[in-house]
């Protein structure tokens, strides 16, 4: 045993040729993976990519068919061999707080896990104290788990998983469904805990932008590993370059470039193009050539993000083939709304539930043809606001106009003029695609004379050709989501409400979806109100409203929001050192703004970059930490969100 452990060196997990299938469906196919001691290893991929199956098997709670799996030096082949590793690992399954017990308090939950794990009374008292302090849950000891916020549940889950000080923790999507502020908080706590206790972690996520949190990661898709390595290395695996440009008119530019570049998207006024296998200088020339007659306002080459790389790798790999899309997107058969008119207007809109004010005097307007994003943490009041505007919920105070009708008096008219797509995709999973579309057509009372033509239009615009006979339940999430969108569009509404429309959908699916939305807004002048958790997605919107505790705390275009943050708090400094954890502790102690750890990098906000950089250099030298790199970046929308919310949270005593 001791010898065997020496042979595998530092590998905590060693997997070769792993296969797992459910009935006849292959969930994980020939996966190789190795995780070193002390690493934070990431598994990134959309729903159904096989992450959970793989993690469960590693945790010894799921059997598998083929391959070898070695965890903590034990070859896991049977239920009894799996038992050998369980004392040394912690596993947190997927689902926000679902593995905790809602009717037990925070402390009772922790005590239960400790008893289950045979933690001695003294050790428990000591560890509990420390973990509760670190996670700032000490004030909530006696609160029932079910009454905690999403972010707190997640932290409690982490505490319970770590209470027996495992050598390895396996966390399945710990940040899904948690707002950006809590997510950042969770990551920094995790990093600190792992550092202190030398724990190895295997963590999965569906958010591409969390990749930078990992030392190494694997991109999973369809049960296979698409790429593995350090985040930067994966970014470079996709061969090609990324060009960002803005041009007028945008849609014309988009249409011309689409024919040549399969990987293209519009985020707000910006068009992002990923060109395969060409250096950026050459690509810039080609694009300029293609856009003669269109006014190019800005044009620059950038390093591709991980999500760009992921999509490129997918296109170059498993999804290779004729993906060129039909350029003739079908048009509305209805007259278009006037693009100057106001589609949605909320005036002092308020909703009280018993003692609790869910929405507090919010104001905003959405014009026809605008993509409008409503951002906020769970419980910020987004869904309640949407429900009031769509006439599902009567407001306690204030009023609203939607699609030219007053919300309070004409709820029925509003429902006829809008499309609504909910978080859970309100589809009938036991009906086929066609049956679903027909059902929605009859619910919305589509005229029989144009029914056939309208169904054909929905199928084409939502890209459902070829799957019309399949059961909705058998479709992958991405297609199911487009079907839900198609169903919401069956009556060609002038206003579209989308409540968390992309949760659980893979990046390729998300892009396709957004391409449809951009088309609807730009060409058909549809007003789109969308709520989302994905900060990268918020960039697609023309206008954003940030909600916090029922109130609007920011209302601007994404670019102006970022600009405002830059004016107020400065640029983002990306610091790379040889000892990130120690550097982090140091910088936090020195009270720099917005310090947080991203894998091996540290981010912080600085107004006067020169002087801050100088100070940091001096500090690091003193502690003999080697500075590898320090570069300023523009802050992202996530930075904006976290900054604004934290500013308010610090004002309000908890």
């Amino acid at each position, binding site marked *: 045993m001791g010898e065997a452990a020496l042979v595998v060196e530092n590998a905590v997990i060693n997997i070769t040729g792993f296969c797992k299938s*459910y009935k006849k469906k292959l969930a994980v196919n020939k996966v190789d993976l190795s995780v070193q001691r002390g690493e934070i290893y990431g598994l990134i991929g959309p729903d159904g990519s096989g992450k959970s199956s793989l993690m*469960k098997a590693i*945790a*010894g*709670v*799921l*059997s598998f068919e083929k391959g070898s799996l070695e965890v903590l030096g034990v070859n896991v082949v*049977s*239920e009894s061999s*799996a*038992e050998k590793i*369980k*004392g040394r*690992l*912690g*596993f947190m*399954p*997927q*689902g926000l707080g*679902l*593995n*905790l*017990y809602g*009717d*037990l308090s925070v402390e*009772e939950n922790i005590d*239960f*896990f400790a*008893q*289950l*794990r*045979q933690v001695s009374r003294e050790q428990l008292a000591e560890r509990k104290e420390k973990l509760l302090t670190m996670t700032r849950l000490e004030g909530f000891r006696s609160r*029932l788990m079910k009454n905690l916020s999403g972010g707190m549940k997640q932290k409690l889950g982490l505490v*319970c998983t770590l209470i027996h000080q495992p050598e390895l923790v396996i966390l399945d999507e710990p940040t899904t469904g948690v707002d950006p502020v809590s997510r950042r908080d969770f990551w920094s706590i995790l990093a600190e805990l792992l550092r202190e206790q030398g724990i190895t972690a295997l963590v999965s996520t569906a958010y591409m932008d969390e990749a930078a949190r990992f030392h190494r990661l694997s991109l999973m898709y369809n049960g296979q590993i698409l790429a593995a390595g350090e985040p930067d290395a994966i970014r470079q695996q996709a061969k090609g370059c990324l060009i960002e440009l803005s041009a007028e008119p945008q849609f014309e530019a988009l249409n011309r470039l689409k024919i040549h570049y399969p990987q293209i998207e519009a985020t707000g006024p910006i068009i992002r193009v990923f060109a395969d296998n060409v250096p950026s200088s050459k690509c810039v020339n080609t694009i300029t050539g293609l856009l003669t007659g269109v006014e190019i306002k800005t044009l620059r080459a950038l390093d591709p993000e991980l999500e760009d790389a992921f999509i490129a790798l997918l296109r170059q790999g498993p999804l290779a083939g004729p993906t060129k899309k039909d350029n003739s997107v079908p048009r509305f058969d209805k007259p278009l709304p006037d693009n100057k008119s106001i589609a949605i207007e909320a005036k002092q809109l308020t909703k009280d539930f018993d003692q609790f004010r869910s929405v507090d005097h919010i104001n905003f307007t959405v014009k026809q043809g605008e993509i409008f994003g409503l951002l906020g943490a769970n419980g910020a009041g987004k869904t309640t606001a949407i429900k009031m505007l769509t006439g599902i919920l009567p407001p306690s105070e204030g009023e609203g106009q939607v699609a030219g009708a007053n919300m309070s008096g004409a709820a029925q008219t509003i429902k006829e003029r809008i499309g609504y797509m909910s978080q859970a995709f309100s589809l009938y999973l036991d009906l086929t695609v066609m049956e679903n579309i027909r059902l929605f057509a009859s619910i919305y009372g589509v005229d029989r004379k144009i029914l056939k033509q309208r169904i054909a239009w929905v199928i084409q615009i939502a890209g459902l050709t070829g799957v019309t006979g399949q059961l909705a339940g058998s479709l992958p999430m991405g297609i199911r989501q487009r079907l839900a969108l198609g169903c919401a569009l069956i009556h060609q509404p002038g206003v579209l409400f989308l409540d968390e429309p992309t949760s659980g959908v893979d990046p390729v699916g998300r892009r396709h979806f957004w391409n449809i939305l951009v088309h609807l807004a730009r060409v058909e002048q549809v007003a789109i109100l969308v709520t989302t958790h994905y900060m990268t997605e918020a960039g697609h919107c023309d206008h954003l409203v940030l909600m916090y505790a029922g109130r609007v705390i920011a209302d601007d275009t994404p670019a102006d929001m970022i600009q405002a943050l830059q004016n107020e708090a400065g640029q983002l400094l990306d610091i790379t050192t040889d000892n990130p954890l120690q550097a982090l502790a140091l910088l936090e102690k020195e009270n720099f703004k917005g310090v947080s750890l991203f894998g091996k990098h540290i981010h912080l906000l600085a107004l006067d970059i020169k002087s801050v950089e100088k100070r940091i250099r001096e500090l690091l030298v003193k502690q003999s930490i080697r500075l590898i790199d320090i570069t300023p970046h523009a802050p992202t929308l996530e930075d904006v969100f976290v900054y604004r919310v934290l500013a308010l949270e610090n004002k309000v005593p908890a």
Partner: protein
Amino acid sequence: MNFNRVWAVTYKEWREIFRDRLFFAMAFVLPIGIFLAVGFGISFDVEKINFAVLDQDNTATSRNFLHRLMDSRYFDYKGHVQSERELDPLLADSDIRFAIIIPPRFEEQLLSGQTTSVQSLIDGVFPYRAEVAKGYISAIIANFNEQSLVTHSVSKFGITKQQAMAQVSPVRLESRYLYNQALRSQWSISSGFMMLVLMVAPPFLTALGVVREKENGSIYNIYASTISRSEFILGKLLPYLLISCLNIIILWWLVMTIFGTPFKGHPFFYYLASVIYVICTTGVGLVVSLLVRTQVAAVMLTIVISFIPAMLYSGLLVPIESMGTETQIESHLFPTLYFLRVTWGSFLKGLGWAELWFDVAALVFYAILLWVIGFLNFHKRPSE
């Protein structure tokens, strides 16, 4: 076996049950609710059967005849009608369950020594009740005939009434009912329903308790920890067992107070047998929880596999002896039959260990069997 871990699970489960109002209600209100609803609802004493009368004769004799029906405690007289046509809607709307039609010249024919007939229209939708009603009517007519004969003999042969009686029916039946002297079906039914409720409620709770963890994923805490299978099963099921042991006493008390059923057996023996039965039915819940993944499915399956044997194959409604051979064999496959024997034996017959040891042994066998099946099929590393 590490009892600290068993206790951790038990204690957690116990608090969850008591803090979740819905679950708590299910633990205590549900069994008592089923018991009272079914116990009062099902009664096999057919009494107060509604009926109406069409008297086409309308003489002293016909009225005398009808009074025998009207005064009976089994029947509830609803009134006279004037024509046969009026009876149809009454029967169709279930206002009456049967009608008696006295033909014209009823008295005249009787007095002239001819036979006559009385017609009865009986609602046959519920055959058991129809049969009982017919039986009562026949008995009343037989009694009427007997009395007529006695009266006739007295006047014709100048003998005393006693002599005439002896002539008319020389053999009389003297029956005495043992164990349940008044033949109150509620005595048997209410005590029998202890068997039913203790068959349904414990598996219901147990299956929901286990499947609830499976459904929301907290079962992974168990899978991923070092607790052994038997520790988990024992710890998880203990609270449900305790609740059921409490429910035995509550139900027992209800049977004796509300339904007034006497208990003639040995309390300690019966309680012990009941606890074994509850261990057995909790095991049913454990097995159900292994077969299904959602709480809805657990509820459905529990109802199917607990209600049916308890209702149909236990001998509660139909005596085992009157079942077909295959049904009899099936009946012996379910533990309900054995516990019903123990229950009736204890409540009504005052039997004890000496007479009922076999049934108790059968229950012990089932308890062990079900828990072993549960243990062997619970895996901490399932395939999905």
